[in-house]
């Protein structure tokens, strides 16, 4: 044997209905996917459902991966959209973006500003609503419509919040430069 199989090889195996390859793929990716989803939704069952949906989708359409970029990125794209679609059916659970994250300790704050410069601080100064929108649209690559479904707010709010958040970030960063 020549070491562990690559994700691409595993995906070929999945396409050939190899449940063993599917299992390896699951074990390699389910963990970090679940963790990343859990940072966006505090309902554990819903995250579990989204992870299950993701891998069922992979099993059904393994050829959905077009070979561009990393398989991990492709999986994440499926996972976040599955979460959105699960959340859309549930009005009682709202997505959460770091809103409960504790404020970093003072020394961490110093480290952070060293590490990330003004951007980290600028992001920290955004309101939770604006941060959520930035996270969904800019970092997770969702469309405004998907972000709206994820956050249970109208699409128009997503757009205004995104616009204001960008303006505020720009202003904060400009302040830091002067």
């Amino acid at each position, binding site marked *: 044997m020549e070491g562990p199989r690559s*994700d691409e090889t595993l995906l070929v195996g999945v396409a050939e209905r190899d*449940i063993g390859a*599917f*299992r390896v793929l*699951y*074990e*390699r*990716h*389910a*963990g*970090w996917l*679940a*963790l*990343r989803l*859990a*940072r966006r939704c505090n309902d*554990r069952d819903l*995250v*579990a459902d989204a*992870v*299950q949906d993701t*891998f*069922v989708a992979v*099993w*059904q359409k393994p050829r959905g991966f077009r070979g561009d970029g*990393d398989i*991990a*990125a492709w999986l*994440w794209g499926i996972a976040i959209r599955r979460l959105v679609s699960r959340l859309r059916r549930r009005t009682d659970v709202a997505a959460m973006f*770091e809103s409960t*994250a*504790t404020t*970093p300790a003072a020394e*961490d704050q110093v480290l*952070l500003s060293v*590490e*990330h410069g003004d*951007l*980290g601080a600028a*992001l*920290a100064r955004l309101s939770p609503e604006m*941060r959520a929108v*930035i*996270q969904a649209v800019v*970092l997770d690559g969702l469309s405004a419509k998907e972000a709206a479904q994820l956050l249970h707010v109208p699409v128009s709010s997503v757009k205004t919040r995104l616009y204001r958040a960008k303006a505020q970030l720009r202003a904060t960063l400009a302040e830091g430069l002067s």
Partner: protein
Amino acid sequence: MTGWHVDDETLRHYVERTDSMAEGASVEQHLLTCAQCRARVNTAATAVDSTMVDLAAVWDRTRDAVEVPRPSVFERLLRAAGIPAHEARLVAAASAFRGVWLVGVAAVLAFAAVAAMIGHARGLWLFLAVAPVAPCLVVAFSYDRRWDPALEPEMVTPYPALRLILLRTIAVLAVALPAVLLLGLFVPGEAPFAWLLPAVGFVAVVLAASTWVSPLNAAMAVSTVWLLTVWRLAARSASPTAVLQPRTQVAFLVLAAASFATFLVRRRHLHQLRPWR
């Protein structure tokens, strides 16, 4: 790869969710391209995090989900149309969709259509003789136990029989009618649509008659009567367009309505469609 990796401290913050947004975003971007750090996150998550989902349980459910045969295209269409999953399964289980003998019906129709296309008056007669009875035969076969093993478990499930029968009939017709219609397009003249009302009428007659006799017998009887009628008309060398006259069409409409009314009135006698008696 850059050779850069998330340091242990940052990784711990990320897993424990004590990081800032910028830190989290940077970790997440890196994870998408670094298998090594993904593996570290997986390990750290199982070791530390109590808020983590039960991945073993999710795996079991995922495996169960993928090992169940995937619903057929038709079943998924039904579900998309708003029919509940269990009903969609029952409807889709109708033998008409196993295709074997639907192909047979299609072949006979295709033969008739080709004959009509070649221009023989006889071909047109043949099409008119076969097309109107095809849908009711399809429906009748889809209720015959000998042809449909799925009927056994299905019919012992307590279920509103009327709803199921209507759903199945509609589903069978949804498959049979377009097939016949498509072939009818190749038939010259107005004939392609002439058989539509007779076909609907005969299906209604079969449903009504099946409150007395088995659907297959009913369909056979209806087919025989129709074939004899067509044969006699042809023998009298009447034009095939006799069936197309508005008056005849109205008669078929009345037949359909009357039969359907009978079916609804006598729906307590549906035992012929519920073979457990």
